[in-house]
């Protein structure tokens, strides 16, 4: 150690000017990296949300394999209630069904998206909770899903892009839709409803919106394909 210390003493350290230059350079570097860092974090959240939605999709198909139907949305607003986070009973008696929140407890999936925060009391706002809509014919407890289950004409679930082009066909509709409200934590475009962000279990419109993020739309939406679900259910021996 001694020779090194001696060496340092000989040099007499950095001058103030040198130090200032170094700090300026470091500062500049940090300043240029900061925006890309926040961008990176936002990107991270989006990909996390997509990953969670993929898990939710698997969980929904798993639920159908076990129960022969898809779950109802959860519509319980009081976190103290034992039914909070669990599917509402017999949502399919509403015709069309209502939209609600994904029954995260029933499915055993993340309660909110990466932007959201968990509610602890009835007065708390719903921030970043997954929104969920199911075609009523696929949520019925009787009859369960069969090879001949048709789409509910009153639900008529449809996905459109921001320009209004339909991304689904009337002969093969989504049977369930899940979406994250994205960074702004409210549904955009067709996914919006009038009383956001407090819960509104929208009943009328079966039209939803999917698009790449743009200035007016930041929701992330997935839907369940009937042929894909049928393939899983047949492979699992649940159908036909």
């Amino acid at each position, binding site marked *: 150690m001694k*020779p090194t210390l001696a060496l340092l003493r000989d040099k007499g350290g950095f001058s103030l000017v040198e130090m200032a230059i170094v700090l300026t350079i470091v500062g500049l570097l940090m300043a240029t990296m900061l925006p890309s860092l926040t961008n990176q974090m936002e990107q991270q959240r989006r990909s996390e949300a997509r990953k969670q939605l993929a898990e939710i999709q698997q969980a929904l198909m798993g639920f159908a394999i076990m129960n022969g139907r898809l779950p109802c949305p959860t519509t319980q607003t009081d976190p103290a209630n034992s039914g909070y986070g669990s599917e509402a009973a017999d949502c399919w008696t509403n015709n069309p069904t209502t939209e609600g929140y994904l029954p995260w407890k029933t499915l055993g999936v993340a309660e909110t998206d990466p932007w959201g925060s968990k509610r602890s009391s009835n007065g708390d706002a719903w921030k970043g909770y997954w929104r969920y809509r199911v075609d009523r014919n696929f949520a019925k407890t009787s009859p369960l899903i069969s*090879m001949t289950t048709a789409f509910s004409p009153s639900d008529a679930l449809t996905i459109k892009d921001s320009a209004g082009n339909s991304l*689904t*066909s009337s*002969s*093969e509709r*989504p049977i369930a839709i899940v979406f994250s409200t994205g960074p702004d934590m409210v549904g955009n475009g067709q996914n919006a409803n009038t009383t956001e962000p407090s819960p509104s279990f929208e009943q009328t419109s079966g039209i939803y919106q999917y698009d790449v993020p743009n200035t007016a739309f930041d929701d992330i939406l997935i839907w369940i394909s009937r*042929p894909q679900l049928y*393939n899983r259910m047949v492979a699992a021996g649940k159908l*036909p």
Partner: protein
Amino acid sequence: MSQSCRIIGTRHPDIRSQQGAAFIIMLVILVLGVTTIFVSSLNSSELQNAQDRVTAEALAQAKEALIGYAIKVQISNSSGCLPNCPRPGDLPCPDTNNDGVQESSCGNASGSTGQSSRIGRLPWKTLGLPDLRDGSGERLWYAVSNNFKSSFRNTTLNSDTPGTISIFASEGTQLNNGASTSGVAAVIIAPGAPIRRQDTGNMQDRSAAGENTPTNYLDYATVAGVAHDNAGFIDSSATDGLIQGRIKVYDPATKSDYVILNDQLLTVTVDNIMPGVQKRVAAEVKNCLVHYALNNNNRYPWATPLSDTGSTYNDNSDEFFGRISDDLSNTENDSNYVMNNQWSNNCNTHNNNTPAGWWRNWKELVFYGVARSYRPRDSSPSSFPSVCATVGRCLNVNDTSTPARFVVIVAGKTLSSPDQTNRSLNKSNAFYYLEGGNENADPTPVSTFSNTFVLSPTSDTFNDILVYQ
């Protein structure tokens, strides 16, 4: 550090008087350089991996939906739709105008027309899928076999129907032969990023002007002297199929490999589709038997003898095992005209006695055994059969300890072991259709069946699908 300094110090006594700034700068540059190279190499292979992962997930999702589509085809008991009745196992036509929906036709029944429309984009809207993209952001492409296309349909689709598309591995070996029984039913293709086609040397034009031209998405490669063009294929050709990417060639000028074909394929084989389709057929037949029994004092009709290979299957008295009958006259007779000579409503195999269009593809391959307790009643007044708890009067199935009232067995494709080839010449021999013990069922047992019916997963040596009640 101090050690090395000391050593250096002893060799060059005047080093202490130097500032050492150049050394530090050198070190910084070196570290930066190494890090840059490391990070960038990590990035490009990581990026490639990430893209391949996205591609694989999209392909897998598309394959699941295609299999589900084939199994869930909506069928009816109509025969008026012939020769173009919906059949379990139908696959959609490709989308050739990029609207996500299958085209209304991809060739005539024989397939002599429309070869080029049997390759196009995956009809994602028709399959209820999201707008699937591969790792480079392109929509998926899709080729369908003439035997499985849903419009216009070729004559027969059952477990013995082969796919007609040939597939080659990237080094040129044949994986599936469309001219034999190993052809595939469909292929999903991830087109990858645009590249220069090896045949024309042109860059693929994916602007709006070129978006519906297969050559702008699917690639061309000469492998081991054989040319492969993924932008088209010919049904039932042993040589003109599709080849798996990526294929690289060595460029002597740059002394490196470059990619000439980056299409990623995922095949949908007949074996992928058929077990589910067989289950569907079995379920339809079971449904017909259940509804028949509901209307006929819980009793089931006689079977048709295996030797009866005429166009109409006639039931036969005391025939406990055979094929599903079209005509139930002997059932009616033996029940003193209490049981119906026609199939019930809510049955998709028959409209009264007329076989449905789709059922004509399957009737030769479906077998049925009925328990003695549930045979057509031969005494009046009407009586309900005793339950299967009575030992010896019902059927044994290996899957359950509860005896069964009836079994329905849907034969899989012709196996080579046991050797079931020449099936069409041996229609009256169950050995050519069933295996694992199911082929031993005695059609006219003295008391009851001595064999145990076998329900087992599909394998290379067993492909019967059995349902019972």
